[in-house]
């Protein structure tokens, strides 16, 4: 047998975070198998350790010159490294809350943490994907882990229903995405982002090629919109958010958004950047619909998880607006928005998880009545988060919305910006409603809420970050702008 | 043997010179197919005779001895009896599927033989992925049993079909892994090339480096063909006769034939994969090689196959039936880890180039 395949181990070092994470997943999986119930917590600590090391390894790769390995299917650039650090970091934060939740709801199982690590691996693959195939594989690794995580509360029919709904719609979205990829591949002859980009940028491209690229593009955009949960492909979002165990909702509403954004950048900006005129119209429609439907429908929700689902939809609309501009600073603003959104959403769900008592889901908005009397500190954090999400000035949520709108205006879409602002004001109503419940209503039950020290600490840091970064947003803004 | 085969093909070309291109190829393939299937069916018929005779002697009986000298015409008597029996349709059975099931069991069993080489250059078609073809078509055979169980609309057939589905799907994985080890040693998925890799005497045969795999393969083969001691699909003492309960006459005969043809196929596969196929065990030995030179390829293959076919009967006469969960445990907890470990062993052996096999 001839052996004409050679690679150097050194060149694989840029994929070290992924390799380390995969190895530790397998090791944790095997260790978990032999753990007696006395040492069950070990899985959690091992998971945190693996995620931390992965994060550090990714951090060390920041500033590494742009490298492409595995025959053009894996890219390491600053965006990838920074996103990986954020992904592992926010997953670690989510895990702190998650353990508390799982123990309270007797869902604690080793597989949960393994699946979360696999989801993180999928996101890292997406962030570093430089061919349609790897992007898709990363997306599937992420989605499959999430489906399972939702269904892990298999005794609750609402969770199983949510998982099934997510699974079926996710499969349809994957199908559409794959169909789009096949069209792009069929006409450009390659699945590598760089080759597709070269093909699409070629000035001698004829109208037939453009037509078919466009055809594929529509399916790509629909597939991505499905995954992001943009209107009109948002039907699954509220049901999944409500049905999933709160810890899973927290995870799936935050971290994957970073990876999805990276995928958007890779496919649409890096790959099909020259087709911007075609996809920006689609994005404009999607984002305006998302902002309006998300803001208006959220007003009528009584379940806080559903309300946050619709609020996510409107946030997604803002993120997509950043892509409509078609300039690098617009994409930077979108990245900034996503990072801010993750920060806020983690804190919001953190408070929800803390309010969960044994076996009881505090997911009605009325559960927040009089929270300021019972536990003023948590109420304060929630206040900060809600104000920030509504876009009230000193908090960071204001700057994220502001930078997006600034880019939109400077790109000439003044009407769009006005519509977005109007709906942002409308959406402020339901954020303020929660604040009103917390501070001006009397509680019908009278118990102080206690939480373990680690959660209190993390939540406090998280809440104060929203304020501190809000006061000094330049640093994060500069990072976001420098990534592209 | 090969020259005989070649001259046979040329003869066909001479007989029908006005045909050429695709149609001629199809006709030649069809004739080849008939030339293969007829001996196969006769072989199958005498396999049933051998079974009754061998088990008879093992149990200190004589076995069939009335029809013809020492009962040699017994299979023909059976065939004639089967053909004249009435085919009974259960009242609420789904008639189309009920009739489709025996066909679906029989056709794949025969179709596999298309790629099985019986000697050097002696095959119907030389498919590049012939081993995978054997696996694929072999896995289709299970539909006969599933549909029979479902279409009969009766409880014992359904239980038998459920058992067989789980059993066959599980053991196919094991067989797949075993075949992976063979492919790793041979470096090919073409049965001809696998056999050619074992040229040059018995010490070149793959059963030596793959000895545990050979055992696993054979036990899985017993399961795949629903033979004792793994015949829970029929399980006369538990579920009467499994999927065959409602079938009579030729419909039953097709199931029966499919089972025996599959047995012969598994024996042939064991020989091809592990025991050097049609190669003489004495190749390369100074005196014995020339002594046995006159023996044709096909005879060596048949001799080796006969041993395995005898093994079927020997095992059936010796072991009591396994319980269903025991078979499943054997598959998932013993064979599967063992085969996976052996894949790594083979990889190591290949890398270090141990012995004459790699």
């Amino acid at each position, binding site marked *: 047998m001839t052996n004409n*395949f050679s690679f150097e181990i050194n060149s694989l070092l840029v994929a070290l975070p992924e390799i380390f994470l995969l190895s530790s997943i397998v090791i944790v999986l095997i260790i978990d198998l032999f753990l007696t119930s006395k040492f069950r917590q070990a899985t959690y600590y091992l998971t945190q350790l693996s995620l931390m090391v992965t994060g550090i390894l990714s951090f060390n790769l920041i500033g590494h010159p742009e490298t492409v390995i595995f025959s053009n*299917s894996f890219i390491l650039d600053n965006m990838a490294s920074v996103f990986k650090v954020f992904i592992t970091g926010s997953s670690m934060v989510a895990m702190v809350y998650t353990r508390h939740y799982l123990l309270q709801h007797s869902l604690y199982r080793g597989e949960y943490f393994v699946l979360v690590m696999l989801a993180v691996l999928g996101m890292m693959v997406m962030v570093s994907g430089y061919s349609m195939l790897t992007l898709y*594989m990363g997306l599937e690794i992420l989605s*499959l882990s999430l489906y399972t995580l939702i269904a892990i509360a298999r005794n609750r029919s609402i969770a199983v229903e949510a998982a099934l709904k997510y699974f079926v719609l996710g499969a349809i979205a994957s199908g559409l995405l794959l169909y789009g990829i096949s069209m792009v591949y069929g006409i450009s002859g390659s699945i590598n982002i760089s080759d597709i980009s070269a093909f699409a940028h070629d000035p001698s491209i004829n109208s*037939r090629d453009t037509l078919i690229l466009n055809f594929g593009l529509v399916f790509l955009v629909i597939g991505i919109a499905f995954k992001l949960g943009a209107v009109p492909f948002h039907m699954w979002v509220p049901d999944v958010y409500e049905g999933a165990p709160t810890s899973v909702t927290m995870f799936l509403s935050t971290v994957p958004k970073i990876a999805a954004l990276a995928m958007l950048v890779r496919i649409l900006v890096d790959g099909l950047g020259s087709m911007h005129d075609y996809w920006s119209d689609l994005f404009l429609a999607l984002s305006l619909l998302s902002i309006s439907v998300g803001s208006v429908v959220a007003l009528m929700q009584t379940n806080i998880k559903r309300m946050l689902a619709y609020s996510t939809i409107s946030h997604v609309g803002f993120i997509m607006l950043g892509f409509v501009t078609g300039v690098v600073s617009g994409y930077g603003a979108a990245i900034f928005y996503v990072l801010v959104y993750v920060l806020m959403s983690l804190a919001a769900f953190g408070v929800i998880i803390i309010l969960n008592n044994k076996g009881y889901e505090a997911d009605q908005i009325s559960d927040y009545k009089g929270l300021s009397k019972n536990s003023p500190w948590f109420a304060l954090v929630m206040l900060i988060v809600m104000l920030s999400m509504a876009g009230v000035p000193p908090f960071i949520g204001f700057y994220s919305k502001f930078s997006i709108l600034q880019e939109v205006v400077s790109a000439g879409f003044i009407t769009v910006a006005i519509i977005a602002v109007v709906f942002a004001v409308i959406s402020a109503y339901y954020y303020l409603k929660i604040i009103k419940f917390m501070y001006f209503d009397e509680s019908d039950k009278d118990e102080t809420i206690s939480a373990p020290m680690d959660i209190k600490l993390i939540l406090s840091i998280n809440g104060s970050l929203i304020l501190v970064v809000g006061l000094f947003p330049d640093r994060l803004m500069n990072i976001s702008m420098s990534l592209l | 043997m090969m020259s005989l085969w070649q001259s046979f093909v040329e003869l066909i070309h001479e007989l029908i010179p006005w045909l050429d291109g695709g149609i001629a190829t199809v006709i030649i393939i069809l004739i080849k197919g008939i030339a293969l299937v007829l001996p196969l069916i006769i072989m199958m018929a005498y396999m049933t005779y051998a079974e009754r005779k061998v088990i008879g002697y093992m149990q200190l009986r004589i076995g069939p001895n009335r029809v013809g000298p020492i009962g040699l015409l017994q299979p023909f008597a059976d065939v004639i009896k089967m053909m004249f029996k009435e085919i009974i349709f259960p009242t609420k059975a*789904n008639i189309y599927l009920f009739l489709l099931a025996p066909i679906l069991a029989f056709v794949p069993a025969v179709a596999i033989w298309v790629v099985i080489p019986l000697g050097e250059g002696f095959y119907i078609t030389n498919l590049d*992925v012939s081993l995978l073809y054997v*696996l694929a078509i072999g*896995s289709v055979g299970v539909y006969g049993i599933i549909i029979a169980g479902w279409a009969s609309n009766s409880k014992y057939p359904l239980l038998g079909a459920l058992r067989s589905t789980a059993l066959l799907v599980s053991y196919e994985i094991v067989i797949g892994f075993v075949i992976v080890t063979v492919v790793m040693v041979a470096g090919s998925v073409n049965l001809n090339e696998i056999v050619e890799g074992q040229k040059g005497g018995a010490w070149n045969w793959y059963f030596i480096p793959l000895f545990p795999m050979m055992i696993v393969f054979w036990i899985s083969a017993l399961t795949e063909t629903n033979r004792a001691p793994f015949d829970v699909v029929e399980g006369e003492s538990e579920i009467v006769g499994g999927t065959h309960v409602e079938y009579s006459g030729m419909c039953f005969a097709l199931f029966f034939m499919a089972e025996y043809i599959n047995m012969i196929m598994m024996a042939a596969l064991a020989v091809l994969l592990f025991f050097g196929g049609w190669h003489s065990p004495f190749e390369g030995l100074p005196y014995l090689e020339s002594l046995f030179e006159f023996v044709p390829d096909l005879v060596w293959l048949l001799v080796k196959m006969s041993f395995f076919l005898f093994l079927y009967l020997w095992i059936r006469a010796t072991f009591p039936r396994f319980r269903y969960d025991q078979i499943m445990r054997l598959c998932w907890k013993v064979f599967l880890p063992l085969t996976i470990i052996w894949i790594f062993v083979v990889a190591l052996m290949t890398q270090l180039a141990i012995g004459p096999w790699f």
Partner: protein
Amino acid sequence: MEFEQILFYLFSFWFIASSLAMILSRNTAFSALFLILSFFSAASLWLLLEAEFLAIILILVYVGAVMVLFLFVIKMLDIEDSTLRAKFTGYLPIGLGVAVIVIAEMSLVLGVDQFGLDVVPQPIRHASDYSNITELAMELYTIYVYPFELAAVLLLIAIIAAITLIHRPDKRAKKQSIEEQVNTQAKDRVRLVSIAPYKKKDEQ
């Protein structure tokens, strides 16, 4: 017409017919069987395209394993198909409308104008010693090794997911512990009690 073309049209017809029959059949078992038939036709078409590995794998995986389990499930379920059909007719107009639009768009974009033989050249036939499986392996284990590994991760998740969702450490399960059986001593099972013989008073 070339013999190969006849085969192509035969298999294509079979493919389309069995796919339609799968959708239109009222009996779920028939639907599954028609799906298997369409898999076979697709595999035959692939064979004509010299992609024998794909063809065989399609049969091995889908027909040999996936559809077997599918039929297994169909056997276990009692599917009430009148309720399914009631919804089917309700959604039919919308579905039909969407289908017509999609077909119209696709035929506009993917028609002969764009992908005809004059635009896209016919693929070259390979010599008879061309080995599809070797070529595939060469590509798969060198250029596409990264996606290949990712596919392995995906399968790992599938295994973990299946076990996580299905496995219940059920205490009611009747399991046989062979170790316990073998290690059992006579004294664990039989209690020998020595009782002094006596007679009842009234018999004396």
